[in-house]
Structures are given as C-alpha cells and as structure tokens.
C-alpha cells in the first residue's frame, strides 16, 4: 500500500500526469514532429543520398517541380482520382445505406458481409482485381466477350487505367461510407418520418427535405474521410500500374516514392512532400474544426 496522506506528496504523485504523458509525447516528437520539420528543411537543399552531397539551393526544388511534367501529371491525377472516387463512393454508399435502412429478411447477417471489403489488405484487393482485370484470362473480359462486346484493356489503356483504379477503390471503401451513413440514418427517430407523412410528404420529397438534412453531419464526415484517404493513393498504383501506362496513373505519392527511394533525389522528393503536406493541411482544416467542435 502506498500512503498518499504523507505531509508532501512524493514526486511521482505530484507530476503524475506529466510522467504518464511523456512516453507518448517523446515518441510523437521523435517520429512525427521532427520528421515534418526535417522534410521542410530538406526541401531547400540539393541532397543526393547516393553521393552524400548536400547544398542549400533555396526554392530551386520547388521551381523544378513546377516544370516537372511527371509531378504536374501526378498532381492532376491525384486530384482526379480523389474527386472521382469520393463522389462514386458517396453515391453508392448512400444507396446501400438507404437499402439496408429498410427491413428485409436476412438483413442482420448480410450486414457484416457488406463490410468485408474494407477489412481486407489493399494488396489482397489488388491481387484479386488484378486477376479479374487481366486482358486475356480475366473474368470481366470473359463476360464481355460472352455477351458479344470487345474486351477492355483495363489497366493498360491510358484513357482508362485511372478509372479502373477508382473502381477498385470504390469496391474496397464504399463500405466505410455505408457504415457512416447507415449510422446517420438509424439515428433518425421514426416519429419524424411519420410526422412528415402526415404532412403529406412522400418518397423523394421526404428524402430530400427530411432525411438528407438530418444526416448532413454524417455525410460531411464521410466526404472528408474519403478525400483525405484517397488523396494518399499509392499502394494500388504501385502494385498494379506502377504509374503507367506512360504517366496515366502517376500520383503525388508515387512521385515522392520514386524521387526519394529510387533516384535518391531527397531534396526534390522533400519539396513534393511539402506540397502534399500543405494540400492535406488545407483539406483537413475543415475536418479538424468539425472534430474539435464535436469533441470539446
């Protein structure tokens, strides 16, 4: 037994809250605060890891980025992927949530199955879709041929590769949107609908003027979470297209990876990382404000 009624509380009691915060604080400083500061610093240097030379060059890395075809393409592809995937996932997720908000037989045990895709490792997802997308042996092209259509070069057609990746993301992450929106729908008390029906509203009008406003917060959360996540797009591109064909699926993350970990142009990679960081901070400022409002 410890005695806390001593004349003066011992050190570890008085500074208890500091002591227990310190481990997490130190890890966060070493593994996140320092790297963020370091990457900003690095972006002002020409730093080749291979040759070990390091020279301050001011904003030159950023100027170079602004005229680098791959970086610009990566930037526009990333925005395109983010927009397409987010919109598609919200539409499908909302549809699924409305469907599962009605009563039907088997709903209880079908629900966990709908969540499956988002539990899987992205690499597993890529493996399956890569096989289904295969030009010669893929099941999708087999079906297309069977119904008399011509097969599609899903991942190898420059005009289609990005959309094919969006489709995979749609399959994998719609469940998350579904989960959030379903929670929103189920938090609406049934009486509200009854009141709406008494007032003569029905079908689409009920949905548009009662349901949507009531799940606005959930909707916004889903939008922001999907934007933040799709903006990182790296693993699918790495595994399935490598940024190609040509630069059709180049993304910012992939650009940073290649410059930093293949060519060892650490300064250039750092500058691209800073651009990405700024974009993410701008996007998430909205989210952070929401969360703080909800948490406090």
């Amino acid at each position, binding site marked *: 037994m410890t005695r806390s009624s001593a004349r003066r509380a011992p050190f570890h009691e008085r500074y208890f809250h500091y002591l227990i915060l310190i481990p997490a604080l130190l890890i966060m400083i070493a593994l996140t605060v320092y790297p963020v500061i370091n990457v900003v610093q690095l972006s002002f240097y020409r730093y080749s890891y291979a040759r070990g030379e390091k020279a301050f060059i001011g904003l030159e890395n950023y100027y170079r980025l602004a005229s680098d075809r791959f970086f610009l393409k990566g930037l526009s592809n990333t925005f395109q992927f983010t927009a397409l995937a987010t919109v598609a996932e919200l539409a499908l997720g909302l549809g699924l949530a409305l469907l599962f908000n009605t009563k039907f037989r088997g709903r209880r045990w079908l629900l966990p199955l709908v969540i499956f895709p988002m539990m899987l490792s992205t690499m597993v997802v890529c493996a399956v879709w890569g*096989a289904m997308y295969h030009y010669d042996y893929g099941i999708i092209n087999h079906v297309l041929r069977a119904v008399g259509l011509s097969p599609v070069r899903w991942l190898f057609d420059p005009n289609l590769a990005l959309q094919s990746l969006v489709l995979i993301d749609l399959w994998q992450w719609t469940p998350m949107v579904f989960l959030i929106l379903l929670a929103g729908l189920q938090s609406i008390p049934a009486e509200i609908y009854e009141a709406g029906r008494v007032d003569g509203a029905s079908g689409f009008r009920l949905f548009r003027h009662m349901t949507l406003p009531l799940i606005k917060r959930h909707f916004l959360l889903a939008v922001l979470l999907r934007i933040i996540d799709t903006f990182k797009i790296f693993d699918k591109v790495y595994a399935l297209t490598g940024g190609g064909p040509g630069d059709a699926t180049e993304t910012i993350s992939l650009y940073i990876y290649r410059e930093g970990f293949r060519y060892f142009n650490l300064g250039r990679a750092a500058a691209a990382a800073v651009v990405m960081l700024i974009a993410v901070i701008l996007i998430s400022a909205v989210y952070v404000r929401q969360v703080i409002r909800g948490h406090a």
Partner: protein
Amino acid sequence: MPSPRRLGRRAVLYLLVALAMVWTLFPIYWMVTTSLKLPIEYASPEPSWAPTRITFEHYRSLWEHRFLRYFLNTVITAAAATVVSLLCGFLAAYALARFRFPAKLDNLFLLWVLLVKMIPPIVIAIPLYVTLRQLGIINSLLGLVVGYQVYTLPYCVWMLLGFVRDVPLEMEEAAAIDGASRWRTLWSIVLPLVGPGLAATAIFSVIMCWNEFTYALLFLRSPAVFTLPIHIASYITEYEVLWGELMGIGLLASLPILFLSGYVQKYLLRGFAMGFK
C-alpha cells in the same frame, strides 16, 4: 394478401439487395475459388465459374515457400507495434482526459495527434528512413515496429481518449478518498473499466498494421523480413498469372482479420470511421 404494388416493391428491394451482395462478394468468391482451381481452369480465356476439380496443390506449395515465415513476421510486427502504442496511448489518454496542462499543452498535443492521422505516410518517410538507418534498425521488424508508431500511437490515443472519458469519475474519487495512490487508481480502477475499449482499440490497431503497405515496402528490403502485404505485392509484380498461389496467400492473409473483426462488430463505426483515418 398484399397488394400487387407492394409485392412489386418487395421484389425490387430483394433484387437490389441481391445485386449489392453480388457486387460485394463476387471478388471474394473469385479469390477463394481460384485458389482451389488447377491452372488450366483459371489461366484460360474462358475461366470456369467454379472449380470442376478442387485442388489444394497451391496451399501445399505455399507451405513449402515460407508462407509461415511471412505470416509470423506480420503477426510479430502487428502485435509488438500494438502493445507499445496501447501502453503509451492509454497512459497519455488518461493524462489528457483527467488533468489540465499549462499553456494548453493538452489541446496542442491532441491537435497534433489529429493532424498526424491525416498526413500521408509517404510525406515523412524520408526522415523516418534516415532515422531508422542511423539507429541500425532499417530492414528489420524492430524498425518497422518503430515506424508503425506513426500510425498506431495517434490512433490509440484518440480512441482511448473517448473510452477513458466514458469512465465515471466517481469511482476514481472514491479510490482516492480510500487513500489509493494515483498509480493504483489507474491500474486497478480505470484499467479494468476501460478493458473492452482497450481490447477493441488493440484489435483495430492490429488490423491496421496487418494491412499496412507503404512503410513495410520502404523499410524492409530482404525477403526474410517481409510482411504479408509486401510478399503479396512482390507476387503481383513479379509473376503475372500465378494466381492459384496468390489467391491462396490472399485468403490466408485475410482470415485472421475477418476473424478478429467479428469481435469488434459493435465498435466498427467508432473504430473505423471516427478513429481510423
């Protein structure tokens, strides 16, 4: 007898449900069945819809090709990273939930935690790589465990903060009046009460590490220390149509996750949507 119109509605409803389930489950069905087919049935312009002859050949081959090694690497990394984060995260969450710090240090810390959850991992990969290299733990599971703190620690702090705040303050006050030290209160009063939340957080953290790709790719070089996602990625990029084995790995790599997620059904929303990203 329901009216024809209502009957029609029911039919449409069930049709939509069926469509939704086909869309969701077909790729999983395809993974499972392909892993049980002979190559002649999947490496063909007309793949069969279901295996006509079931074979476990691919699973045997996996066994011979060090599948267990990759599996264990993944288990060890996910477990170790989770234990560290859970411990530090729980202590930090308790401090932040129950005490005030000067200069708004607590709010600042939380804001940073939230921001880190949103930073794409690749952004800080270079400094992390250099740090791990200097520590001599690059290309090792230990290094990956350290790197994974970037994901798991903010996640654990954020999730556990919510769970600690749910614990009624009276219990702790009663313990303090009885003369229990702060440590004792923390371990024997708060910890058991947060137990279920702690377990759910641990499971989500394990799932997160289990599926992580970017840092594993960047920090691991030798196949001996590969985790499952990296192993799968090398399969995808190196062998074009060795699908039987690939799907077998995919299935075996997914089973533990599906199993674990069964335990956290009621926390899914809190765990995934509110804390995951």
